[in-house]
């Protein structure tokens, strides 16, 4: 990884430079987060060309509306991934996309797995670990994260009580947290 050393810059530093409208910081930001952001976008839109457009749109938006990021409210990555997810979900729900993809009413169906080509030693074996999540827990997380459904939409569409949706999301993330910590 040629840009591994740039990861040493802290989130605070990066935020400060972006806030100061340092265009060079965008390059650092891209190196640090693009593969994760792109991976999620690709999971949502499933088509590489569309995912690239979404990522470009997202970075432009991140740069243009950076003043609306408030670190007192949350992590930088959370803010950025939300922008990416919203753009990607808008894309798959746009009329054009809906016409071209008739199978969207099968949200729990086959999800193409794109090979992760970013070498991240810390993630080796994690995918196996997350398979310890029970299918119901994983389904809830993926419906929200990759399909953009809200808790109440999941409750309605899958006829699950709202409380159960919350409980499953919480237990899933708790379990994931433990699994990731165990690896760290």
């Amino acid at each position, binding site marked *: 990884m040629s840009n591994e050393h740039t990861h040493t810059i802290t989130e605070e530093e990066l935020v400060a430079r972006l806030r100061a409208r340092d265009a060079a910081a965008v390059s650092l930001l891209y190196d640090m987060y*693009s593969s994760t952001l792109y991976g999620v976008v690709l999971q949502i839109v499933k088509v590489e060309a569309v995912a690239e457009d979404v990522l470009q749109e997202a970075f432009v938006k991140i740069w243009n*509306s950076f003043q609306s990021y408030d670190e007192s*409210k949350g992590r930088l990555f959370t803010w950025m991934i939300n922008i990416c997810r919203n753009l990607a979900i808008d894309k798959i*729900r746009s009329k054009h996309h*809906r016409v071209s993809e008739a199978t969207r009413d099968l949200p729990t169906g086959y999800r193409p797995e794109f090979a992760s080509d970013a070498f991240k030693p810390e993630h080796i074996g994690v995918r196996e670990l997350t398979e310890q999540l029970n299918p119901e827990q994983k389904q809830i997380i993926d419906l929200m994260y990759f399909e953009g459904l809200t808790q109440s939409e999941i409750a309605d569409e899958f006829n699950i009580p709202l409380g159960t*949706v919350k409980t499953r999301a919480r237990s899933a993330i708790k379990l994931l947290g433990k699994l990731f910590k165990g690896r760290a």
Partner: protein
Amino acid sequence: MHNEDYIASGILELYAAGGLTEAEQQEVERVAASSPEVRAALDEACATMEAYAAQYAVQPNPALKTRILETIAAQNDAQNLHEEQSTAETEFTTPVVPMYAGAEEKETSAYKWMFAASIVLFLVSGLLSYNFYNKWQQAESRLALALASEQQMAQNYNTASLKMEQQEQLLTIMRNPNYKPVHLQGVEAHPDANVMVYWNPTQQQVYLDILQLPAPPAGKQYQLWALDNGKPIDAGMLTMEEGKATLQQMKAIQSAQAFAITLEPTGGSINPTLEQLFVMGEIKS
């Protein structure tokens, strides 16, 4: 709600996984900003989702980085130029797009389908009711026709049976030897007039059968007279029914030698108007 309860509710995890509406998200952010405990728990959940997302990490095409950086650089140049022109204006006018615009669109799409389906249903039901209405109208008019023809039949039957009854009556009278047939012939002024009277002296019954009489003018009516020893006795008014050979029962007459018919004002007269004598006939004994 206590912070522990709030953290335990699972809402922070929903936030991290992106399962909240924009309003719910803002609420979580507000609580997190005011409570370090909640903020720590929220960060933990978000970090976990970040690690989860990282599993799906894919290195994008290297050309994409160049493309994105160039786009941003080009935009900055344009923006700087713009800023030089009007420094007073805020440079960041890009509105924040609502987080769940997509969800709304999905809802409207569902409504659109429901709307379309309801229009189709409406049209189909409209067509069906138009069809049924037509059929109903046809059935109605056929029924009216059937009823009318049935009524006609009943009327015909009644007329026929009435005629038959009259014929039978006439036949009974004619075959009864007690009845004396009296032929009333037209006088010189009315040679065509021709009436038959059947008289039963024992039962004093008088029947009259108009064979030929001109229709009376308006306000006039024929009256039958019985002549007993030269004295005219009112025997009743004639009812003219055109084209029908009907037998009419007249007033009872005890004794008579002749019968005559005169034209009188409607309702009849006490004494016959002899100038208007039409027919007359003597009883043959």
